[in-house]
């Protein structure tokens, strides 16, 4: 068990000008489950592969515990990885797959058998130990890949989108199994996903990356409640937060004829810097809204689509502000959802809105 530390670790692929991972600073605690999340191409997998030793570190360093592993080969790092496509050895049985690392390390046969059997029991794979990977279902293969990592009892688990090849239902089920397993083993885990729901449900902390830059690293709750910038605000949460660039006045942000009140400090901060042009970005989550009657300070929104989910309904619509069309998503009670083509009046809940600078997108408190 160990901590993992990235210290201004960077990597630029040959032939590209922009770094794939740009001065990543990240400290992962002992036994922590950290999720790296971001859109494709954000550098999350690259960061993980740098930690695994499958990619080089151009500058900066990576430490596991007190050891500087920046230039160590993968096998010297005491890590185990679960790959997206599982990367099982197709010519070996499940037991051989799980025991391969131990066999190479020269572990006695009885010890290997015992550890493989323990892992198989933990993962419910006991009946499949003699099978080849091709005779297993997707979920079973995924568990074998997990088993291969567990058997080694490494200091750190690395998981690169291990659930993306499973169907939706199995993914939800396996998600909770992995989280429970990690809690039980207490092994430091770095988990890469593009799915923000996975990130929010599994991680003790979540690190959001964009274009090789770390945007924010915090607990899921904090990430959701206090996103550090516009990108994190829009990326975390489904459906996404309503984020609009609106004119700034002394009273706050103006939505057509409606004002969203801002504090004096927020208005001052929003005016700083060049290029803001008297505007500000304001965001509120679909659930932080009320549908109100006409003339009570709501933004009039024409309903385009209603998604009924049973307990809730998501109302997608648009509003006209001075000729420009803005889209909105609002969560309402599933039993009283408005209908398509209707006009509803949306009023953001005061105190639950987020304010960001119009140019640099940073959060303004």
């Amino acid at each position, binding site marked *: 068990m160990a901590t993992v530390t990235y210290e201004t670790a960077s990597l630029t692929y040959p032939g590209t000008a922009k770094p794939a991972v740009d001065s990543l600073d990240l400290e992962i605690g002992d036994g922590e489950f950290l999720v790296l999340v971001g859109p494709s191409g954000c550098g999350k997998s690259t960061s993980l592969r740098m930690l695994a*030793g499958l990619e080089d570190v151009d500058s900066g360093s990576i430490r596991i515990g007190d050891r500087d592993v920046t230039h160590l080969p993968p096998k010297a790092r005491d890590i185990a990885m679960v790959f*997206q496509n599982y990367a099982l050895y*197709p*010519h070996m049985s499940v037991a051989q797959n799980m025991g391969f690392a131990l066999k190479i390390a020269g572990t006695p046969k009885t010890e290997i058998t015992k550890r493989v059997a323990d892992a198989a029991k933990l993962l419910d794979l006991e009946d499949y130990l003699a099978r080849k990977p091709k005779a297993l279902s997707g979920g079973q293969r995924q568990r074998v890949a997990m088993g291969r990592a567990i058997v080694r009892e490494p200091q750190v688990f690395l998981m690169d989108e291990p659930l993306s090849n499973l169907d939706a239902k199995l993914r939800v089920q396996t998600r909770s199994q992995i989280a429970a397993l990690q809690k039980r083993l207490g092994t430091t885990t770095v988990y890469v996903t593009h799915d923000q729901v996975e990130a929010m449900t599994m991680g003790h902390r979540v690190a959001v990356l964009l274009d090789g830059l770390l945007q924010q690293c915090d607990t899921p709750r904090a990430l959701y409640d206090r996103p550090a910038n516009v990108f994190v605000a829009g990326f975390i949460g489904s459906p996404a937060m309503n984020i609009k660039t609106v004119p700034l006045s002394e009273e706050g942000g103006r939505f057509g004829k409606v004002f969203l009140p801002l504090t004096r400090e927020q208005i001052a901060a929003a005016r700083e810097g060049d290029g803001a042009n008297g505007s500000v970005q304001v965001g509120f989550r679909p659930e932080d809204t009320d549908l109100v009657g006409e003339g009570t300070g709501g933004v009039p929104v024409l309903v385009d689509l209603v998604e009924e989910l049973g307990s809730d309904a998501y109302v997608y619509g648009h509003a006209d502000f001075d000729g420009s069309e803005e889209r909105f998503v609002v969560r309402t009670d599933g039993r009283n959802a408005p209908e398509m083509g209707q006009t509803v009046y949306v009023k953001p809940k005061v105190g639950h809105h987020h304010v960001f600078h119009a140019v640099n997108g940073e959060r303004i408190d």
Partner: protein
Amino acid sequence: MRHGKYPFLVAFLAPPVALYGVYVVSPYLQAFYISLTRWSGFSGNVEFIGLANYRRLLEDDQFHTALVNNLILLACLPVITIIMGLFFASMLNIGGRRGRAGIRGVAGSAVYRVIYFFPQVLSVAIIGVLWLYLLAPGRGLVDRSLDGFWLGWLTPNEGWLGNPGTAFWWVLAAMVWMNVGFYIVLFSAGMQSIPRDVYEAALLDGASRFTTFWRITVPLLWDSVQVAWIYLAIIALDAFALVQIMLGNAGGPSRSGDVIGLNLYRTAFEAFNFGYASAMGVTLFFLTLIIAVLAMRATRRDRVEFS
């Protein structure tokens, strides 16, 4: 499509089948018959003698020399070529580290790839002549290199190709050299279809290059190895052209480098004993058939599937 399907199929299938029948199958059958006769090849005087030619084969020392040489080729050529092919292919594709992370070939692998494939674009005749020059007594590249390393005493007095003890082994060396390039390409193609992350997993599991080669690469390339084995076995049983060019019609000093094909050629076109030559051909045919079947049996394993 139902209507007129058979005329369509027959129109396309009949010509090749007819050609195959006339020019491949019927000569085979004729050869079986000729092997049971005494025939000079030109006269109309064909004498049926039953299995006499085959009985003679059993006692023919020169045929035994040729057969043993073919069996030496059969034992050595596939093994050496496949091991070298696998080794070079894995160096070209996954062997390199260049002091950096990840899976890649050795530095300059693109250049090596072309060089290794080079013999494959040369005809056998050119390769034979090339090796004659290499092995030319005293002035060839081999002798000069040996001299350069003070190893000139290794060269036999009669020259490499003039000594019954060494001549045939140089033919084997030339055969390996001319074939290995193709199998490097074949195995490289196979390796490229192995998912990269399998190698990465092996790297993380702590496998050395040697372990990766034996425990991952070779088992996953087994299909290609099996094909290579059969091709090379067939090549080993032939070897006529290269032996003929490098060692001449006589099959080298004291006929020590003779192979069945060359023996057959001499019997037919120098001694004009077509019946006996056909018996050799038929023997070679069955030998090849048996070995191909055995090779296929021996190397049969579970098909590997990548998920």
